């Protein structure tokens, strides 16, 4: 059975990619993923805040009370050299992972503002990343911030990162745009060579004892796959970029559905966190079984086969079919 596919111009032995998660944060765990036949890995994200603020914060507290009082002009030794910075370590990790694994490695940056952190994109490339994923998460809380400005911010960020690097750039986009298809097009125009559909935002919880909101990881199930399938299907064949299905890929069947909808690859996180790396082989085996049973020879054969352009029932992806589904439900 031929599972091979290409994503971001990278040849993958199968369509399963480990999405950015704690499982992709160390050489050891990435090697375990590789041993279980993962095709590629997206590293855990390096956050803009880590690049910008970690050292800033230490520097701030080293100096904040200095030169105020004659007997204590400083309170900590201040001419020290810092080495082990999160951002620098990330680069070092990339080097180590590349040395000890053979699968493609996608570095991941998470940020939104225009600032010094963008410079790090080039450093990630130099450190050996095969591609870069940009995870842009901006939650506008100001009512004065108009939608088109938010969109432009996303586009500007993508453009400024794309400009800095020669390796392919993947944008992990979210589904909350007025027209995700248009945003997808603009991301590609701005330099993205691939799109991940979609980012899975953290979950908000409330602690009633503390009377405080909390942020929690959002563990998905196959049930969460719907929007991913819809937009893979809509975008398939329309853009000169790869598509990666994300959010809700839990089984071999989910992978097949995503590929048929138009994805070039699929990204896994929740399933690996809940079931362990061994599940990768299970998924591949289930895929193989289904394909054998239904006499498919390769992944490429089925890619986009039920997309908006190729399906026998395009209305499912459109609004009128939504009405139909509701009516059907009432019955």
């Amino acid at each position, binding site marked *: 059975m031929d599972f091979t596919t290409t994503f971001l111009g990278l040849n993958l032995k199968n369509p399963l990619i480990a999405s950015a998660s704690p499982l992709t944060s160390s050489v050891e765990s990435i090697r375990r993923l590789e041993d279980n036949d993962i095709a590629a890995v997206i590293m855990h994200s390096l956050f803009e805040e880590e*690049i*910008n603020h*970690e*050292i*800033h*914060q*230490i*520097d*701030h*507290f*080293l*100096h*904040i*009370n*200095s*030169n*105020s*009082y*004659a*007997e*204590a*002009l*400083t*309170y*900590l*030794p201040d*001419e*020290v*050299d*810092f*080495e*082990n*910075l999160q*951002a620098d370590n990330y680069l070092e990790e990339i080097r180590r992972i590349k040395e000890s694994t053979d699968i493609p490695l996608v570095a991941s940056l998470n940020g939104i503002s225009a*600032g*010094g*952190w963008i*410079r790090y994109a080039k450093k990630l490339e130099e450190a050996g990343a095969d591609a870069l994923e940009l995870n842009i998460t901006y939650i506008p809380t100001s009512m004065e911030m108009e939608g088109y400005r938010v969109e432009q911010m996303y586009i500007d960020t993508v453009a400024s990162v794309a400009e800095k690097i020669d390796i392919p750039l993947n944008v992990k986009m979210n589904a909350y745009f007025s027209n995700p298809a248009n945003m997808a097009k603009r991301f590609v125009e701005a330099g993205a060579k691939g799109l991940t559909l979609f980012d899975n935002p953290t979950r908000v919880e409330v602690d009633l004892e503390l*009377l*405080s909101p909390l942020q929690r990881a959002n563990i998905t199930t196959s049930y969460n796959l719907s929007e991913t399938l819809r937009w893979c299907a809509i975008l398939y064949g329309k853009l000169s970029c790869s598509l990666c299905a994300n959010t809700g890929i839990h089984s071999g069947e989910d992978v097949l559905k995503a590929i048929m909808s138009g994805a070039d690859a699929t990204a896994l996180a929740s399933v690996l966190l809940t079931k362990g790396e061994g599940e990768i082989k299970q998924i591949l085996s289930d895929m193989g079984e289904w394909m054998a049973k239904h006499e498919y020879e390769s992944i490429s054969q089925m890619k986009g086969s039920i997309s908006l352009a190729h399906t026998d029932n395009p209305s499912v992806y459109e609004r009128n079919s939504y009405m139909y589904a509701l009516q059907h439900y009432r019955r």
Partner: protein
Amino acid sequence: MSKPTTITVDGNEAVALVAHKINEVIAIYPITPSSPMGEFSDLYSSKGQKNIFGSVPEVFELQSEGGASGTVHGALQAGSLTTTFTASQGLLLMIPNMYKIAGELTATVFHVAARSLAAQGLSIFGDHQDVMGVRQTGFALLASNSVQEAHDFALISQAATLRSRIPFLHFFDGFRTSHEVSRIEKLSDEVLKKMIDSNLVAAHRRRGLSPDHPVLRGTAQNPDVYFQGRESVNRYYQALPEILQGEMDRFSALTGRSYHLFDYVGAADASRVIVLMGSGAEAVEESVTYLIERGESVGLIKVRLALPFAAEAFIAALPASVQAIGVLDRTKEPGSTGEPLYHDVVTALFERGESLPFKMPRIVGGRYGLSSKEFTPAMIFAIYDELSNTSPKNHFTIGIDDDITLTSLEYDHDFILKNPDQFQAIFYGLGSDGTVGANKNTIKIIGTETDHYAQGYFVYDSKKSGSMTTSHLRFGTKPIKSSYLIQKADFVAVHQSVFLEKLDLLDIAKEGGIFLLNTPYSKEEVWSRLPRVTQERIIEKKLKFYAIDAYKVAHASNMGRRINTVMQTCFFAISGILSKEEAMAKIKGSIQKTYGSKGDVIVQMNYAAVDTTLENLYEIDVPARADSLLELQATLKGDMSEFTREVIGKITAFKGDTLRVSQIPDDGTWPTGTTQYEKRNIAQEVPVWDADTCIQCNKCVSACPHSVIRSSVFDISFLKNAPAGFSAKGAKGKNFGENEVFNISVAIEDCTGCALCVEVCPAKNKSQTNLKAINMVPQLPLREEGIAQWDFFLSLPKMDRGSLDPSNLKESQFLEPLFEFSGACPGCGETPYVKLASQLFGDRMVIANATGCSSIYGGNLPTTPWKKNDEGRGPAWSNSLFEDNAEFGLGFRLSIDAQNDRARRVLETLKPHLDGALVEEVLGAEQHAESQINAQRDRVEKLKHSLKTLDNEDAKTLLELADYLVKKSVWIMGGDGWAYDIGYGGLDHVLASGKNVNVLVLDTQVYSNTGGQQSKATMTGAVAKFAAGGKAGVPKDLAAMAIAYENVYVAKVAMGANDTATVKAFVEAERYDGPSIIIAYSHCVAHGYDLKYGFDQQKRAVDSGLWPIFRFNPDKIKEGENPMTLDYKGPKIDVKDFMYRETRFKMVEKMNALSAGTFLQTAAHTAESLYARYQNLHAYYEPSSKEA
């Protein structure tokens, strides 16, 4: 001679750079102003920098200067080149070893940043009292007068000590030289190697003790030989001057800088000559140059080698024309016939007598510059004028107005020596705004990267919070000799506009000068916001006036409230020192140099600030007339004594130099409770109480480090007269009646804005969970209303102390604090404990306070926080030294007990003449509870009344002593530097004494006051000075050591983790009739995080198990109970969750991940083993298990 490298450093660094290169062992102990020499050495060694012999010097911190000198002595005796750095009391503690080192003819150099000694008061500032206090030890004394000389003499003295075998004390003026930043020529390793004769080093090593060639030193000698032995060294001292001059000459050949035992500067035919040493000589040289240009025949002798005094060389240095000599000593020897240098000069000349090469001149001595008192050209001219008199005043003082013994010389206060060559700039900043750092950087830029000479000197406030810093910067094309503060400035920058509300800061501006103001107001508004006097100064002096909103620019560049780069850019942009383009390029270059290693982001952030600064800096059009209605505000407010107003008021207005001798208390006694008048208004935001949300727990009151939050319960009827905005709510608690209301008030003018109160508040507003029962709001709009509310709160009746349970946290916080508005840092972790003690026992406390933070915020002039209650009672406080505090406090106890004992005996004698029942009651009274003590006070009052009716000597005696019949509570307070290190021997002895003293250890786990050096309390993995890579060892368990005595009350507390246990510990400790010690976790600015989370971190420290909290009460053993109460349940969270929230721990991870991991493991192990230790103790003392 290769081209020398130019560096811009302060005196301490200049010395450390040399000393670290030419020594193998460095034993140190921190003391201001010498600490940075040790810190630099530690830093160099921690970075692996080698000495000229190819090894990395071993830098070791001891537990005291006594210990450091012992280690120096030992290292020398074992053959290594060894040095130390110290000052003041530290040097005094080294005296015994100095005798030994000199007596054994051992080559070493002690580098001393000369400082005042503690007499009527402590002073951290510079004079020669410490150095002159060790004249008798046998050390040679070598004085350097400037940063360059300190650098050079550090080497010359080492070369000379090796050749002469006489140990050297190389000294320079504390602060004036140790902290003056100056451009100097750096000595190359090549010069160092040439100056240090390897044969002499080898000879030194060969004299070291070794079992391979054993000898014996340190014998006990008898009358037959001791005397001869003492005299056997004479020839070494006789040879020393020539040896030193020889080394100076060799140095001169290598560097081109020429020095002599005595350097004469001045007219060849001078008739009047001043003789002195230290930085003052620079100012005299500057004045001499000025006077000679005006035709005066004056001269100066700079004394280099103060001891042994080379009389011949001195006489040879004097011009033959000399007729009058003024010898200036920067020291004071009360009762002597003159100070040491004067004595030496007089003796030298009179011993030569008739054979002098000139007629015996008039010789007078004078004192100047004690405690860094300014020494200016005007004063120097007055001395030269005095020397013109046929009978000049002898034993004069200069620089003060001695209106009692009339020693002082008059001088022209208006005279200012113009240095047209110099550009002089003065900057007023806030401690935390980065002004000083920026100015140090500016000096480095100009001093290192241009041909200009540069000098920087910085003056700090005596408060640790909201303090004003003044930077004095001079630049010029000629070497700068002005060793005094700027008197007229070409450029005045005020980095905080609030300073203008109280101070006339532009008086110092030169006509036509530049004034730069950081102001929140717009270009159009800024003029109208200035006080009238500021406007007038700008107009009359024709100042060019520039303004910027630096906070806005800093904020926009993500730099928070640090305006250093912004204001530095402004200075370069408008001062004209460099062209604008050159200046901007140099600032950016310097930013890259400073922050390069810390990441590109910080560099870019600073670049952005530089670029946006210029767009936001504007020149203000100055109107022709001053129209402001704003008058300068008084620095003290309220109804105060004349002394407070006239004396303390002058000091707070920065006019303390004008106070006359008669106005200063002659025995160091000052009034208490004066911080209440200083309304500093330093907080931008202050807490405001929300009565409806409040659950009346009083936690905010207990946490407030500055005692600005108070609570009270009172009858609702008082509210009739309450001012607007004063709220109150029905009092919760079974002790309160229906008509009683609860209120929390805030002294917003005294608040430092730390927000600790908000963080500790457990109550959230039900409708808006981002609000609590106490919330920070901008102070300015609230000010008037807030003042009225606070005044009203103070007018409310005080709650009855007898009706409150002091061991209950909530009720304890209704007690009036007798410690308020101290100068401690915002968010201080020590002061809540100090305040608590004052609330509980203030009216009967006598406090011995070890030198350190608590003695500074507790007793640094001008205003002090300890205060009296309405009855006139309150803590009596004193600071003796750093090392002896426990013994000092024990002395209080012994003395009070002696007085009490005598009072009881006299009372017994007088019993037949008095009400027998009353006498019995007085003698037999229990005095534990507040009510019992009050009852005893009443009895004693009755007794005193009766005594007045008796005509009898015993009655008169008892009248004097009767107050000792009421319990006095002796408290011994200090930090961990004192309790764990320098004072531990004494503390241990006092704990073993069985006497009723209460020890409070304010444990910040670091020497906070001197800038964060490690102590034995420092936690594993914490970075501190002298533990730059993080402390590897485990902190000492002082509590366990005290428990071992079994009759000592021991408590380890953390108010943020368990305030109830904390209050109980204080009450139990005081009640225990024997020694008690409370070790209190105190968060500190040296820990490196926002201290508003201080209590949260205390809780984490306890939850991690690294700060076990418990109480060990020996009274319970007698009662058959377990004396050990564990107030925590063992490690509950990962040590990392506590440690990595603080920079002191976190930075290790960023410096060395490997050791960071090891430290975490060690800490986790410590947490477990501490819990096991205390659980075992608890189990051991469990009554049932003991019976078993």
